[in-house]
């Protein structure tokens, strides 16, 4: 009981909620300024997300990569590292999965798990590289990881071109059926929405995230390094290996996001001129979720819903997609500027607590 109360304590619940409400209100104000009806727009958003089984399925599909990259950023943040490289790790995950999915031919019970594993490893090692540079040479992880995003993009394009490209196409060959992680019956039940095991693995990932950090000695060390590296070193914790480990695990999460995009959603990888940006959305998701797995799950649901629903606002209420991005931006803004929300929420909480105390007395 106490554990849950710790997770859902007033400031961890009301600050994000307040941020969301303020974000939605700002969005409404902007829509009004533009001459659009915010009530219609939010209704259209809601209907787009929950309107049909297909839309529910596709919303889940939108949430999945955000959940993975959110976990990737959140995990490393707990160890005191700001992982901007989730985008690159995501791409490496896609590439690893695509290579195994296309190049190897194995029975399904080995093929799909192997492809998932290799993709996760690609992502993990890509991130561990950042951790290693930081641990051994003191390279700032923000700079190295953001630069490695570009290297990952072009390296991935190179590998695609060299190994996997279908002639005359801008994408790889399709992966073998045995490597697919799509769930056929669920897709059929949801009117052909693209469903795969990603969301379930993502939720398991959130649980793993929790257990690693709060239920193991390693996790305790990681968090100690994150809270105060000097104190952690004094306590005899190996900071260097902690940094590499936490980056590796974060990279595995991001890599898995890319894996399921390839093996579950597309079944091929596209030669891309720019990254999909999931890694950067993941930063916002982690921030909104307070870098806690439960928070990240909810934050990814919110972001996925807003992202997918934006097409509905555009379609049914004729609100430009940009407005929805402004709403998302506003939510992040309000979350990032804790002070504003706390300034509003805290006094209410404080007065309620006072009342509680009076009542108790």
């Amino acid at each position: 009981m106490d554990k849950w109360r710790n997770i859902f304590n007033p400031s961890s619940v009301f600050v994000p909620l307040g941020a969301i409400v303020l974000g939605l209100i700002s969005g409404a104000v902007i829509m009004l300024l533009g001459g659009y009806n915010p009530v219609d727009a939010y209704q259209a958003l809601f209907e787009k997300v929950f309107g049909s089984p297909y839309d529910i399925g596709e919303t889940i599909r939108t949430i999945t990569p955000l959940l993975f990259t959110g976990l990737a950023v959140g995990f490393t943040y707990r160890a005191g590292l700001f992982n901007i490289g989730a985008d690159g790790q995501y791409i490496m995950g896609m590439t690893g999965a695509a290579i195994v999915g296309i190049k190897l031919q194995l029975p399904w019970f080995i093929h799909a798990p192997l492809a998932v594993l290799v993709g996760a490893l690609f992502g993990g090692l890509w991130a561990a590289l950042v951790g290693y540079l930081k641990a051994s040479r003191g390279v700032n992880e923000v700079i190295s990881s953001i630069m490695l995003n570009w290297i990952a993009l072009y390296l991935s394009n190179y590998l695609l071109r060299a190994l996997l490209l279908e002639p005359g196409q801008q994408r790889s060959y399709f992966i073998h059926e045995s490597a697919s992680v799509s769930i056929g019956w669920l897709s059929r039940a949801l009117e052909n929405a693209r469903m795969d095991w990603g969301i379930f693995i993502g939720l398991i990932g959130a649980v793993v995230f929790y257990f690693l950090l709060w239920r193991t000695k390693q996790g305790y060390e990681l968090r100690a390094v994150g809270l105060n590296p000097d104190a952690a070193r004094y306590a005899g914790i190996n900071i260097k290996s902690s940094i590499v480990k936490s980056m590796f695990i974060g990279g595995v999460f991001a890599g898995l996001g890319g894996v399921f995009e390839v093996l579950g959603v597309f079944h091929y990888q596209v030669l891309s001129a720019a990254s999909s940006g999931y890694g950067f959305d993941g930063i916002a998701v982690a921030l909104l979720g307070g870098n806690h797995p439960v928070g990240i799950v909810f934050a990814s649901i919110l972001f996925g819903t807003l992202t997918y629903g934006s097409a509905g606002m555009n379609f049914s209420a004729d609100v430009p997609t940009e407005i929805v991005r402004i709403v998302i931006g506003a939510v992040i803004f309000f979350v990032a500027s804790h002070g504003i929300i706390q300034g509003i929420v805290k006094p209410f909480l404080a007065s309620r607590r006072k009342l509680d105390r009076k009542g108790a007395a």
Partner: protein
Amino acid sequence: MKNMKKSSFVVSALLAVILVLSACGGGSTGGNGGNAGTNNGAGNAQGGTKAGENFRIGMVTDRGGVNDKSFNQTAWEALKQLEGDTGAKVKYLESKTDADLIPNMNQFIKDGYDLTWGIGFLFEDAAKTVAEQNPDAKIAVIDTVVDLPNVESVTFAEHEGSFLVGVVAGLTTETNKVGFVGGMEMPVIKKFEAGFRAGVAAANPDAKVLVNYVGDFNKPDQAKVAASTFYNDGADIIFHAAGGSGNGVFSEAKDRAKSGKKVWVIGVDKDQALEHGDDVTLTSMIKKVDQAVLRVSNDLIAGEFKGGEVTVLGLKEDGVGLPETNKNLTDEVLQQVEEFKQKIINGEITVPTK
């Protein structure tokens, strides 16, 4: 207590702002509605019921979005024109990621739109999936081919148009060196390069063609560097097929023109002399995406949707070619271009595609 006061002030101020704004917003929405009403009335009074009024046509963009100054924008402008001409209702959805292509197409189809456009080669797999799952829906794609009975595909013979600008370049170059700057190295852009090479070779066998692909349609900086290298290398004409990156080629040419050097750029997709001026724009290889969109959409309204067919728009169909006015081309050059054009149309010359 002090804090409490401050925060309730903030909240009430916020509420006040929202109330005021919602009043304004309501008013303006009403006004818009009224306008739309009068417009419709006028339209009806003038032309009676328009042919396309009961038709709804949707368009899904790729990640470039509807304001990409290229493909998507041209297609959307064509649909807007269609709306004005026929009264058909048109709408677009932008795709934020590649994963959005399918749900966006499905949005139109599930809403019962009469035709859904997928603009660009990226739609090949998305359109195929959606068309298979919705055999009754009508879908049209540009720049790619989907072989299904409910999909009409439109592609362009870019190599033919590029051949003609290749002829222009071959006849105009003084250094016997010309350049080609491509966007991404992919089949469609390869057609531009192949046609251009063949055209240059046909008009001027001594001329050399330098080639560079910058890897993206939205990297003018890299295209500028590529152009700079070519010009330094002695090329005096560069043909670009690089979308937004091509602006970098123009920028480099303008810089050189300023310092008194005479260099040329051959534009792509539309008459780029209109945007970049006649000082550096020799001519352009026009690709009439708008004509393709209008043609297929009008067929639909006329009840003649050609599902399952592939329409290739080349020189013969006037789907590609040079602009109508070419201030920088001599009559001699234009005459030769016309001769080659006729040869391609009547099959005397077959332009390679790769």
